[in-house]
């Protein structure tokens, strides 16, 4: 008994001298990661913010105050770009979510060869985007492309049609390719969520006479709703910042039809060497995405409360 009462005292007495070094050791462990974040994230962010108040070019820079921002606010072209970016994001994310949901539902169904289909979903996500986009460039080609060729064969069009040469078709062609790239991951996330729904819930509903559609609507969707909302947010941010697809297919053209904020920023900052103006655009992107994310997170909390089990 005497030993037991003495032990904690003895232990704390032993521990006391190493308490400070332990704390320093902990800092030492996280220091490389913190240094990495400081160099790769924090410093560029701060530098971008600083640059946005300058007219930095290749030849030098000088402080211009809020001129870059006031120019952007007064530019109708920039307003169009913002609207186009949100429209691009809305169309692409909506399609990814709907197709992902349909795909996950099919892959979750007890059909023969399900494992094979699950593997076949992966390639668009697994192969490098550049290679996938080059494939799509060929598909969209008016003279040698599959789509134009098939459309001509079945009599939909009279002659070669360059999908990427016209404003509307170029925009939606880029959307299709972006959806092709982004849907597999959405599908797999939804599939994983669906597989986590307890089988008993479906059986109980089946015994109660609920149809497939009713079970999907009242059990599957509510049960995976937090994942749907989370994926919508992530997918929206990725799509908002989607650069490779647009750049490889159209470089933002024709006549700016596929120029989103991120493409515009690249063109200004890297293409025209207007680092200050480009930085202002980048800051606008960060602010817009931050506002967008906060609104989304607010709704995510509401969704979790609504669809949660009350725990």
């Amino acid at each position, binding site marked *: 008994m005497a030993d037991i009462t003495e032990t904690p005292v003895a232990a704390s007495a032993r521990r006391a001298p190493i308490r400070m070094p332990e704390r320093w050791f902990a800092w030492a462990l996280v220091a490389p990661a913190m240094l990495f974040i400081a160099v790769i994230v924090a410093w560029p962010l701060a530098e971008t913010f600083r640059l946005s108040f300058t007219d930095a070019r290749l030849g030098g820079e000088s402080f211009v105050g809020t001129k870059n921002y006031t120019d952007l606010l007064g530019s109708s072209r920039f307003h169009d770009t913002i609207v186009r970016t949100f429209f691009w994001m809305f169309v692409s994310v909506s399609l990814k979510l709907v197709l992902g949901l349909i795909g996950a539902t099919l892959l979750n169904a007890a059909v023969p060869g399900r494992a094979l289909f699950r593997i076949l979903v992966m390639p668009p996500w697994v192969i490098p985007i550049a290679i996938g986009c080059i494939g799509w460039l060929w598909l969209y080609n008016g003279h040698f492309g599959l789509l134009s060729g098939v459309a001509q064969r079945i009599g939909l069009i009279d002659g070669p049609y360059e999908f990427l040469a016209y404003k509307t078709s170029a925009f939606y062609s880029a959307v299709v390719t972006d959806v092709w790239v982004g849907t597999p991951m959405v599908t797999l996330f939804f599939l994983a969520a669906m597989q986590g729904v307890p089988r*008993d819930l479906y*059986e109980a509903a089946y015994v*109660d*006479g609920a149809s497939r559609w009713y079970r999907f609507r009242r059990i599957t969707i509510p049960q995976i709703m937090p994942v749907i909302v989370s994926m919508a947010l992530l997918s929206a941010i990725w799509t908002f910042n989607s650069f490779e697809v647009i750049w490889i297919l159209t470089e933002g053209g024709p006549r700016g039809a596929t120029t989103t904020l991120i493409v515009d920023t690249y063109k200004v900052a890297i293409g025209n060497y207007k680092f200050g103006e480009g930085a202002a655009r980048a800051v606008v992107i960060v602010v817009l995405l931050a506002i967008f994310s906060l609104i989304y997170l607010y709704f995510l909390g509401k969704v979790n409360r609504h669809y949660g*089990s*009350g725990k």
Partner: protein
Amino acid sequence: MATLELQNISKSFGQAKVLHDIDLAIRDREFVVFVGPSGCGKSTLLRIVAGLEEATQGRIVIGGKDVSRAHPLDRGISMVFQSYALYPHLSVFENIAFPLRVAKLPEAELKRKVGQAAEILQLTDKLQLKPGQLSGGQRQRVAIGRSIVREPRVFLFDEPLSNLDAALRGDMRVELAQLHRKLDATMVYVTHDQVEAMTMADRIVVLNGGRVEQFGTPMELYHHPASKFVAGFIGQPNMNLLPGIVQATDSGGVTVELAGGPTLTLPVEPRGLSAGAPVEVGLRPEDLGLGEGLQMQVRVLERLGGQSITYGAVGPLDKVCAVLPGDAPIREGETISLAINTNACHLFSADGQVSRRLAAPALVA
């Protein structure tokens, strides 16, 4: 309410046959419990009745109508699952109302029925909560409520109490028995817990390896087990099985010499046994008392207050159990003498068949 008949039901999963020619006739308003060890096929049988599994062969007849191929809804059954299967995103009200919403019942009638079920199950003040905010027992009641509102002809319960702690399980057992009386419904209940089976059932189906070992009232199973398996499965603590050799038989009973123990004349039907046949004498722990008979070296003594559960070695057996009075003057390590009530003994032949007892008490339902 309705009768439920299972006719020649068999079920195979691939090459594995899990149910063999099950024939049962469950009476209207009867509470029948399927009991057996894990893997005996009791849950599969219940799922076949529910329509969640299809029998490989055989017929299911509910209320005189063949429903073997019918949708669960058309069978007039409702089922309570082991996991409760409550919809976590819906309130208690919506969980109970779920089958009524599926059936598109008018809102006023739906509210009335849910209210009635909630009142029966004492859930009225919990209707707006979500399942995650309820205790295990309350969740189970919600699951039962979802069954009640359907007004089924047959209620099916798949191990509904196995996720609850021991104390709550006891309470819920009483509640379910009361509910059965209140609803006056046909109920089929699956459990692996023989105490649940004995306390709640009008009749018990003991399943083993996909076959019905015995179908009878709890007292029939206790006093006249149809096989060594049933004898060992029913009763708590388990029946002791002491090996012996038949010395003589006549119409009054069978004389058996226990291995390392006394020779007893048991009042049982000889049923083809002859001198020299190896047998096992079944002795329930509660039928042993202090007195002249078996010599047992006490190894473990569990004092429960009213009873002393005693485990020890008798002859070649090292785990014989006796239930003695709570204040029995015995200690671990000492050798005690146990009196055997021969009228209470069971006799099993080497192939597990039982000889009918001649001195068993009159059966009560």
